[in-house]
Every structure is written in C-alpha cells, then in structure tokens.
C-alpha cells in the first residue's frame, strides 16, 4: 500500500517520523508554510524557513524514499500586522520557481479579523499573478464556519478556479459548502481537537470520495504523523473497499497535486 500525506509540517518532526511514515507506505508529503508556535521577529526568519522547506526537507525526506513538496506564504496567525506581512510576502516570488514549490499555502484566517482578510486577499492576488495553486487553512472551533465562508468568498472574488484550491481542516458543518462551491476539501486527522479517523470515514460515507482527501497536519503540537495510515485501517475495519481507501489517501491527492507539473512521484 502507498499513500500521500498532503499536509504535514515535517520541520517540526524528527527523522524517525520520516522513517516510520515510509514504513507505513508514505511516498510523498506536501508541507505548507505555517506558524512555528511563536511569532518570528523578522522577514529574515521567514526567508530562512523557506530555505529549510525548499532545500533541507526534500533531502531529509529523500533518505527514506519520500518525495517532499512545499507551499509558501505567511500564515494567518502572523498576518495580523499588514506591514510586516507585506514585507514577508515580497520575498515569496523568488522562491516560487524552485522545483518543489507547488503553490501558495497555507493561507486563510485565524481569528477572522480585517487585517487577516486583507493579507489573505493579497496572497490570493499573488497566487493569481503567478498562476499558483492554493492550499487554505481554516480557523478552528467556533471560528471555523464563519472563517471558511469568508475565505471562500475571497477566493471566489478572484479569477482562481476553485478546482485549483484545497480548503483544509473541513468538518461536518463545512464540508458540504466547500464541495458544493467546487473546491477540494481536506480532512485533518487529529488525536483530540479535530476530525478523528472514525469521523473522516463517516464524512466519506455522507459526501462520497470526490474532491476529498485526508491528512495528518502533523506539527509541533499533539499530532500524529501516522494519522493517514491509521485512517486507512479504520476504513478497512469498517468494510470500505481498497479502491475507496486508495482514492482518498492516494489517488485524490495525486490528482489534485498533479495540476502542478512539478508534482511527480517518479523521476
């Protein structure tokens, strides 16, 4: 069996995690730029982070036969100061040509503020200008529903095709609208606060497999880099076919990501 974890923050994980993921069948990961658990003090901090994502992580992953791709942006949590955010955004275009950069992400909202929305719109414009795909972070808990709608409205106001955008961290109250509006939807499997493997399987039973994927979003917090293979087991335990399981954990991410010609699983 092989799978893709299309949203995981490997900079926060140990090399053992790459090894265990490879043993569990992981053939590729994509890593969106995000918040490191603390606010960086300068744009230079982001420059170094983008170098880590584009130069160091692909090599670390390759030791275990895993392809590593990335998405670049300033995350919504650090985008509340528009002046600072613009300084960071100005360094992104130079990195977009790099061979493992798939697009802009994970952009979105955190507390649904006007400042966050301004910077979201400017990063959507950046994706438009450079013809990039987009990976979207949606807010957590009580902020998710409102934030998801605001984000979809902002993208719909641009010329970016919804089929080139993945809206991540969907749950039962947002997945329907995301799919109805033509976007791709990602289910994030988290040990406690987000979607569990059981609920991910439930969502598949309610909404089907089209334009839906799952990921671990493993990061520096309590999270599980093996969440995707565990969800595969959960689906199998419940009697889903191997074909269905492969569709949501391999075929669908491959299909979405392959819209960027830089995404390749073979040489």
């Amino acid at each position: 069996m092989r799978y893709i974890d299309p949203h995981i923050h490997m900079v926060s994980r140990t090399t053992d995690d790459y090894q265990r993921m490879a043993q569990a069948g992981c053939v590729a990961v994509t890593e969106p730029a995000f918040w490191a658990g603390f606010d960086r003090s300068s744009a230079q901090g982001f420059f170094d982070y983008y170098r880590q994502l584009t130069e160091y992580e692909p090599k670390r992953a390759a030791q275990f036969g895993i392809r590593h791709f990335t998405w670049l942006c300033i995350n919504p949590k650090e985008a509340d100061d528009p002046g600072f955010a613009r300084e960071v955004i100005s360094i992104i275009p130079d990195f977009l040509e790099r061979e493992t950069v798939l697009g802009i992400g994970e952009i979105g909202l955190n507390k649904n503020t006007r400042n966050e929305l301004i910077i979201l719109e400017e990063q959507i414009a950046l994706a438009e200008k450079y013809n990039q795909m987009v990976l979207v972070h949606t807010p957590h808990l009580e902020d998710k529903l409102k934030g998801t709608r605001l984000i979809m409205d902002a993208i719909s106001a641009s010329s970016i095709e919804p089929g080139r955008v993945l809206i991540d961290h969907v749950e039962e109250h947002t997945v329907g609208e995301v799919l109805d509006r033509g976007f791709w939807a990602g289910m994030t499997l988290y040990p406690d606060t987000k979607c569990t493997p059981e609920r991910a399987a439930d969502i598949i039973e309610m909404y089907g497999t089209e334009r839906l994927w799952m990921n671990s979003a493993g990061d520096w917090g309590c999270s599980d880099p093996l969440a995707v293979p565990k969800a595969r087991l959960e689906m199998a335990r419940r009697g889903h076919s191997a074909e269905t399981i492969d569709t949501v954990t391999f075929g669908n991410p491959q299909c979405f990501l392959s819209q960027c010609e830089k995404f390749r699983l073979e040489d």
Partner: protein
Amino acid sequence: MSDPIFSCPQNREEVINTYFMEHRAKLIDLAAYLDRLDRARPVGDDADFRDTAFRDAIAILTDGQSQRARRILDLLSDHSTAMPQSADGMKGALGAPHRVSTEGGAA
C-alpha cells in the same frame, strides 16, 4: 448532498459490535463530567456560555433527527458578522461562541 442512509458498509449490528464499547465509555465520561460540575461551586450568577452551549448540544443527541454532528458543530459556531480589525489582545478559540455582542473586541 447524497442520501446518507445505508452508505455505511457495516450493518447496524456490526456498527454496534465495532463501536459500542468505545462509545459506552464516552457516554459515562460525559455523565461523570456533568456530575463533576454539580459538585463544583458556582462562580458568579451567570451560567458559563460554554456550559450553556454544551447542554444545548446534548439535547441535539436525543431529538430524533439525523445530522447530529453537523448540527452540534453549527450550534458551537460563531454566527456573528462583525469583524474586528485586529486579533491583538484576543483570546484563542474557546470552543463555543460568546453570545454577548462585542463591538469588534476580544470575544
């Protein structure tokens, strides 16, 4: 969305065989949590907005309608339209919306 009825590969007995014990434990956790609240001294006169939302959500479990997870998440969502300018000084998400209207401040 597609008709959710019978889209689970397992029949009802199989679902119960697979998941009953785990959810029996979660059910008792829930009851014990409510009992714990009964034993805890109240703070102030007003109910905590999170506790109010929690009890409203419990009612959804037994109202006989489907789509319980979606409806509970919807109940626990912020449905306001106001947008604060900045997140400066705001708390992180608390899991249930503050029903008190705030002029774009921390909620």
